């Protein structure tokens, strides 16, 4: 917000301190973007040119060839599809299930509420590697003939959806229960006295009021699940079944002799998250700070 819109506040004369601050911030921002800009620059140059002229050199021509090559050679659309198959159900299920738990612990005064919320919150703070060994075995042992293509939980989109939901619902339950607690209690109370069922209280009264928090969490979850590398790396064995982020790891192994192509490929995988971020920036940031800013 510019200070000119607030006549009562300082009119902000151009003070040297402000200029120094702007120079510092602009410099820092540019330095922060540098690795990404370097990746873009590399990706825009043909390998034949950089291999003879060196990477730090004036470009003869800039083309999108690396991007189209990376896109076509790596069958990227297929991997984007895999990611969608995992991320969409995972985000929706996480939101539904965690809002149910949040509703339960925040609207009713049962004895186990605090313990329940503790279990969810603590579970989400664990490093994934703490649980991966038994989880991997469990997934291998769970036979689901006819339900997943692999016949097991292992190497299936369903397996990834389940672990994402289980893990992320810890965070969402915590945030949503805080949010629901801040809603006035009279709302549900009146409905309850009028004979509304618990489900109605949840579905028709509480959930619509949680829209801002749900939107923030949906944005956050989409980006996190899209970016997941670890679960897919361990729990998916067939390259064709991988979501985009871990598929990229295979691709880079395949094309590591051409860094420009790898640069283009990695940038392409980052595009969806960047689009979501720029479109829903406010939701994303508010989601990230939903828990921490409430004091």
């Amino acid at each position, binding site marked *: 917000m510019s200070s000119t819109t607030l006549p009562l506040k300082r009119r902000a004369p151009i003070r040297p301190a402000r200029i120094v601050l702007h120079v510092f911030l602009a410099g820092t921002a540019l330095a922060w973007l540098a690795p990404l800009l370097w990746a873009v620059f590399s990706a825009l140059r043909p390998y034949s040119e950089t291999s003879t002229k060196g990477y730090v050199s004036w470009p003869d021509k800039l083309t999108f060839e690396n991007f189209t090559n990376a896109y076509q050679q790596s069958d990227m659309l297929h991997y984007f599809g895999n990611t969608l198959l995992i991320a969409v159900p995972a985000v929706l299920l996480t939101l539904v299930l965690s809002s149910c738990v949040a*509703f339960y612990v925040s609207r009713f005064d049962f004895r186990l509420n605090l313990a329940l919320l503790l279990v969810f919150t603590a579970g989400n703070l664990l490093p994934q*590697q703490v649980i991966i060994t038994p989880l991997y075995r469990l997934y291998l042992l769970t036979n689901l003939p006819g339900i997943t293509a692999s016949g097991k939980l292992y190497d299936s989109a369903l397996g990834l959806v389940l672990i994402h939901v289980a893990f992320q619902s810890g965070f969402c339950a915590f945030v949503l229960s805080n949010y629901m607690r801040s809603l006035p209690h009279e709302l549900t109370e009146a409905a309850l006295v009028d004979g509304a069922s618990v489900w109605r209280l949840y579905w028709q009264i509480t959930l619509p009021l949680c829209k801002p928090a749900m939107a923030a969490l949906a944005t956050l979850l989409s980006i996190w699940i899209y970016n997941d590398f670890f679960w897919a790396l361990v729990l998916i064995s067939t390259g064709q079944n991988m979501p985009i982020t871990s598929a990229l790891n295979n691709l880079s192994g395949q094309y590591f002799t051409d860094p420009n192509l790898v640069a283009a490929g990695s940038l392409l995988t980052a595009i969806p998250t960047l689009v979501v971020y720029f479109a829903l920036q406010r939701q994303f940031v508010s989601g990230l700070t939903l828990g921490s800013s409430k004091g």
Partner: protein
Amino acid sequence: MTTDTTTQTPEAAAAPPPGVSPARTRATHSHRRLLTRRDRITLALMAGVPTLLHVALVWVTAIASIFLAFTTWDGIGFDSIKWVGLDNFTQLFNDNPQFWPAVQHNVIWFVVLILIPTPLGLFLAVQLDKRIRFSRVYQTALFLPVVISMACIGFVWQLVYNPDTGLINSIIGANKPGHYIDWIGDPHLNLWAILIAASWRHTGYMMILYLAGLKSVDPSLREAAALDGANEWQTFKSVIFPTLRPTNTVVLVVTIIEALRAFDLVFVFNKGAQGTELLSILVTNNIIGESSRIGYGSAIAVVLLAISLAVIIPYLIATFRKERRA
């Protein structure tokens, strides 16, 4: 997060939730009597289904890790599980050349994150909080790395560090034979090279958390400080920083957990070879590597679990106790 792994940053959730008023408690007690049988079943399902999923996949497996850490198992049939007591741990502590370096690197990871990107993120947040023009542009640039996957960050930084074609060596002329600086391969350099990339990301994350914290600072505190003639540094030190206490707690917990979760970046860089070993990498190598030693891998996971719980439990107790008191 990471997805977090590392990609995951759910730890952001924290800080005391708003309190429960006495009036509310009374209201909920009267609610109970209004619940029909069907309502009770609905409620049981609403709480039960998610809890079952979460407990089965997260907590049962965590406890299974503890159990398996005292056994050897080839993973084929349950009858091949054999109790070996503390064998896995003695082997781990005494004979594994990677274990203590990994612990040390996890500690270094935390120390670097808390000493460099965290104060830098705080500093940037304080600057950006000054109703400055283009604030959003600066914020977006600094925050962009947090949105991109850790794996992608790994690839981008490899373009910077590559000995032959990388940005740094090309600029300083170290990309000719005999003058190589091998940022990724040299065991004395690679951890620090990766930590720069990790700090690059962490700064933006910390900045956002602190910006949120600063927004909740009561403006009248600043005015009072200004009236008292405090300069910028004095105001920050004695007025603003103390009010950021809840944010600082969150930041500390987030940073410890991030240091324990660190994985993607290292895996993409050099799979945790020479010089970049981490506990998370050792666990994972036991699963996707050739040698699947389940008990041994679980023992490493238990070490990771013990350190994590030593942080998580006191933090949650403090957080939830505050809530109860309120």
